[in-house]
């Protein structure tokens, strides 16, 4: 059976609200408008205005209110219309949410979810296209999840809402309408995915490709192309950026001896850099080729369609990098 990512998110919210009266939603246009991207459709009708709260366009204020409610023991799900606007509230995410449990030595835990679309959409320009995965996942105290498929979206959002710690949940606008096949198990209201575990989407032996969110789809398509050329790629869907599943990544690289990281965000201090460092630290001797990073271009997002396409990874970028890694088995210096 098929399910869209939108339905996966919507049903996860619905079921968790129905299971736990402490769960409530807040954000801009989540209620009467049914969500700017319709993720919260129908929930105002079902749960009423006390549990589905339309806020003014004041991210600092409503995020602070959400965090305060979580201090008290409620379980707020705060929607950012897009994560670009979370910067207005980022002090509350970092200083008020992420650090409280530590500063209070466990007295004040913060069971809150911050969710919304993250990263590049289509044609929305420099201020509406930033990926915040690397920023948030740098911060101890936060957990950072990034679903790709409907299974991910449903299972991880349920896990995030049930989790006693603050979770940043990074969706992707361009995936909302995509359908994915899902098993019967996924439909079950008890379905939940573990936080901190990556998923091997495709097994392979020649090269490891890590990706998250929309880029998992690109990595899988690249793997198809590579397969035709005899390169058997293993594709890892990270799912959790923090905690990062270093074990799964390293195990894979120890098998394939080659690694490509893919992400849409800015390259410097990105998820790819971290994965590369983690693999160099743990599995240096297993690497037969330099790690290849594929990432967003190191520029603000341009609007023009042709430039925008050049600014985010394309399937051919992944294919090209993979081939480079595979055709080169001896360290550069040795051959130089």
């Amino acid at each position: 059976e098929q399910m869209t990512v939108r339905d996966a998110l919507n049903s996860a919210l619905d079921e968790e609200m129905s299971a736990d009266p402490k769960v409530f939603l807040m954000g801009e246009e989540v209620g009467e408008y049914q969500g700017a991207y319709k993720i919260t459709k129908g929930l105002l009708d079902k749960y009423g205005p006390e549990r589905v709260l339309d806020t003014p366009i004041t991210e600092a204020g409503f995020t602070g209110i959400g965090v305060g409610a979580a201090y008290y023991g409620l379980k707020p799900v705060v929607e950012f219309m897009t994560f670009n606007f979370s910067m207005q509230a980022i002090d509350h995410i970092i200083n008020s949410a992420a650090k409280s449990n530590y500063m209070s030595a466990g007295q004040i835990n913060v069971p809150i979810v911050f969710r919304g679309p993250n990263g590049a959409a289509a044609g929305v320009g420099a201020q509406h296209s930033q990926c915040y995965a690397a920023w948030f996942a740098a911060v101890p105290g936060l957990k950072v999840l990034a679903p790709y498929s409907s299974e991910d979206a449903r299972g991880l959002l349920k896990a995030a809402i049930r989790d006693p710690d603050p979770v940043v949940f990074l969706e992707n606008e361009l995936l909302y309408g995509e359908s994915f096949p899902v098993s019967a198990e996924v439909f079950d209201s008890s379905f939940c995915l573990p936080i901190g575990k990556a998923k091997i989407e495709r097994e392979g032996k020649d090269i490891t490709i890590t990706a998250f969110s929309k880029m998992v789809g690109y990595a899988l398509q690249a793997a198809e192309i590579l397969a035709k050329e005899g390169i058997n790629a293993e594709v890892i869907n990270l799912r959790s950026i923090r905690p990062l599943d270093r074990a799964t990544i390293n195990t894979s690289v120890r098998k394939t001896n080659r690694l490509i990281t893919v992400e849409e965000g800015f390259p410097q201090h990105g998820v790819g850099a971290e994965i590369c460092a983690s693999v160099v630290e743990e599995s240096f001797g297993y690497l037969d080729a330099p790690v290849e990073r594929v990432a967003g271009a190191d520029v603000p997002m341009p609007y023009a369609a042709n430039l925008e396409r050049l600014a985010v990874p394309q399937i051919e970028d992944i294919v090209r990098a993979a081939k480079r890694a595979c055709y080169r088995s001896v360290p550069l210096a040795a051959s130089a």
Partner: protein
Amino acid sequence: DSTPITIETSLPFTSHVCDVPSRTVETSPKELMKFFRDMALMRRMEIAADSLYKSKLIRGFCHLYDGQEAVAIGMEAAITKKDCIITAYRDHCTFLGRGGTLLQVFSELMGRQGGCSKGKGGSMHFYKKDSGFYGGHGIVGAQVPLGCGLAFAQKYSKDETVTFALYGDGAANQGQLFEALNISALWDLPAILVCENNHYGMGTAEWRAAKSPAYYKRGDYVPGLKVDGMDVFAVKQACKFAKEHALKNGPIILEMDTYRYHGHSMSDPGSTYRTRDEISGVRQERDPIERIRKLIFAHDIATEKELKDIEKEMRKEVDEAIAQAKESPMPDPSELFTNVYVKGYGVESYGPDRKEVRAVLP
């Protein structure tokens, strides 16, 4: 024809801790015709943008200004290009009002080299620095402190000019606005905060987002005026008043009571949170262009046919600009790496596959 004509603004102004400007304003046949022409052009431009969007030539977000034209036009009529304007993402007509061209508008909207931001900015990021237009900002509320910063620089430079910072009723609740207003008041900055109250922030009616939707009063200790933003003369009068006030006394708020006919952006039909009757009521009773048309007739300045001809002419101008814009090429791929910095120090920048695409920044 500059024969003076005396008229009254549609409504009296309402004020908060300041005097009110006079309702009586002077105009001329020439000015009336100019207002008609300028607003009709804006209206036509936005309608055309709507079509271009629907035929997928414009992508992403696109926020149209039709209904609110009197604000842009009335404001321009009261000030000079040395005064600064800064606004949010609903910026096409503000840009046009500052002297931008249709060709620049449509080229930018379609992401072409000929755009005012060479296709790199898009719908929300128009600029025209040479006539004091500082964008085109996508983050709700951000343009208000930025505008106060322009006003700071004008005062610092002893330029005797002012800045108009435009924002919506939704943005009016943003904390940074109150922070910037306090600083502007402490420093007597020549900043005019113009709240374009079109009564909805996306799908949220003003009273659902603001405990006190009397935006002209929200400055508390800062003076404010409530203005009929559908009446270009009221807008002009208020902006003149505000400019004088700001140069002498520091910040002031103008709340423009206006309306957007379109949905918030192209994905919003604009009809789920308000009634069709409400929209057509405004169109019939308060439309800023129709108001001028009536005045033109009342003063026997032009005939119905003459005005229709002007509208046709505007349509033609718009169509021609679109045709030309379509000829404008996409930006050269090398533009991906330009303008990241003014001074790039010869360091490298990278594309997605950094081994394949990298550029040395100038």
